[in-house]
């Protein structure tokens, strides 16, 4: 009788697990993300500036402003409790802010990098300084957010910018460095004007498909093999669910900015040549003189190692460090490895540069 019960329980248990897996496949991953307590201190159009509530007394006078990309959502920086870079920084006594660009609508299809770098970022920096009652600031840009903060740092060198942290920030877009993206976006095969004319803003799903196609087997199959593996072995699904939610949470890319991103960055590689001009102001990366921590992932296929490394020869900072992790574009930011490598690296470097 006991044996029969055990078999029945096993079957029931497996059915439950199967149901859980199928529910994720059909309904999508659900997870409570971005839970570190915060308040919105400024908004501009769809953009929001968050100030994270301190969990301990502020230990460092220089606040940190996290700047995210225009692709996907910024909560990957504050994924879930226990797996959040934001939470780690807050718990270490830093005053942390984050700029969320929001979800653009069709009315934002004319937004360009001029708007983001010359209008939004300087305003956000001012708000941070005012809220934190600080005179200097650390900017931490992730992915395209890193490219944007580098441009800001080149256009507004000196005070109040004290430190710049670039996390997998693509700077050199020469075709030999950009891998598949370089081929897919080459002038020969890709005309961003047609897409912008058709869609106004480039749909998030399209950008997402492009990113997944760079590693199709891993992204379309491997991810779900991991899911079933975790479900069947009864392991925690929290991080997997949060990551899967984030991966599928693509947002539209404002048309005009997309056109610039493809044409001026990918196709013409203007940034390293010093040919990017924002409202007539030349973005000269050699103007960057603040302390810089540049972090890249060996397995990153979205911002390859040489794309990020190029920054080191272009800036004129005396205090600069290039730190390489054996991880991919997102893997370096979250998960158990990130806790042991990236997070302590960032907080230790900041401790030395924030007094």
């Amino acid at each position: 009788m006991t044996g029969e019960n055990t078999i029945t329980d096993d079957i029931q248990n497996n059915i439950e697990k199967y149901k859980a897996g199928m529910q994720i496949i059909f309904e999508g991953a659900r997870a409570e993300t971005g839970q570190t307590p915060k308040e919105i201190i400024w908004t501009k159009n769809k953009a929001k500036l968050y100030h994270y509530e301190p969990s301990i007394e502020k230990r460092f006078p220089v606040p940190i402003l996290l700047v995210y990309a225009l692709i996907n959502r910024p909560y990957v920086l504050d994924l879930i409790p226990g797996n959040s870079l934001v939470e780690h920084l807050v718990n270490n006594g830093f005053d942390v802010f984050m700029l969320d660009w929001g979800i653009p609508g069709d009315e934002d299809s004319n937004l360009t990098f001029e708007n983001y770098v010359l209008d939004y970022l300087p305003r956000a920096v001012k708000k941070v300084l005012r809220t934190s009652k600080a005179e200097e600031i650390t900017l931490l840009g992730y992915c395209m957010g890193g490219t944007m903060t580098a441009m800001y740092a080149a256009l507004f060198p000196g005070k109040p910018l004290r430190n710049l942290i670039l996390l997998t920030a693509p700077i050199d877009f020469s075709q030999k460095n950009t891998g598949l993206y370089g081929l897919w976006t080459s002038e020969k095969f890709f005309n961003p004007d047609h897409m912008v004319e058709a869609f106004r803003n480039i749909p998030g799903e399209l950008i997402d498909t492009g990113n997944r196609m760079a590693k199709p087997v891993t992204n379309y199959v491997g991810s779900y093999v991991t899911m079933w593996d975790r479900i069947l072995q009864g392991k925690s699904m929290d991080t997997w669910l949060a990551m899967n939610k984030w991966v599928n949470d693509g947002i539209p890319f404002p048309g005009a900015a997309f056109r610039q991103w493809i044409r001026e960055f990918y196709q013409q590689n203007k940034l390293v040549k010093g040919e990017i001009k924002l409202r007539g102001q030349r973005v000269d990366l050699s103007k960057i003189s603040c302390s810089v921590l540049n972090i890249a992932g060996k397995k990153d296929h979205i911002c390859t190692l040489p794309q990020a490394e190029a920054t080191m020869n272009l800036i004129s900072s005396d205090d600069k460090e290039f730190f390489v992790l054996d991880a991919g574009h997102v893997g370096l930011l979250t998960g158990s490895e990130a806790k042991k490598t990236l997070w302590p690296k960032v907080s230790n470097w900041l401790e030395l540069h924030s007094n």
Partner: protein
Amino acid sequence: MAEESKARGPMDPRDFWRQWYEATTGALAKAAELEGDPLGITAQWLKVMEENRAKILAGATTPADPYTFFKQWYEASSETWSKVVGDIIGEEKFVENASQIMESYTSHYMVTRRANEDYFRNLQLPTRSDLVRVAEIIIALEEKVDRIDEAFDDIKDGSSQLATRDSLTDLEVRLGRVEKKLDTLSSVLEKLEAIEKLVKHADHIEKKAQ
């Protein structure tokens, strides 16, 4: 009865898989023969399937549990698949085809969007473009409010300074003093003018007397 049940009994998973494998690969090979395989995808697929079958069959046991079997198959094949797919999507020919598909999709999307816009406009209904125009006006208004907010922030931060009541009173007092001085100057000037007139008058009398 026992014989019948044996005949209908659960199939050996390996036999089942072998049957599935042969049916699938056979159909794919035939399709490639008949319809051509310009990118060589089917040929590569079949090659990888064959390699993976060999890898799995080389293992000591084949699990009956379908998930474990699939996982084994994935682990045995994912690296090869990644390489094959990577090679295919990294070829100019593939990108050229994908680009053409994307171009025709965007053209179709654009035509449909314009047609829909025209249709709703003719029905005198607001379209997405109309909403965009309204939203743009609101954003422009918000932009103005934000500038005012920034100006207030600057004032509060001391970048711009507002006149205080004290400073205005001080200015008033100083202005009063200047006014008094001007009055004095004016009266002096008047006296000077009067003296000048008297001098002129005296000169005139003197000339007459001569």
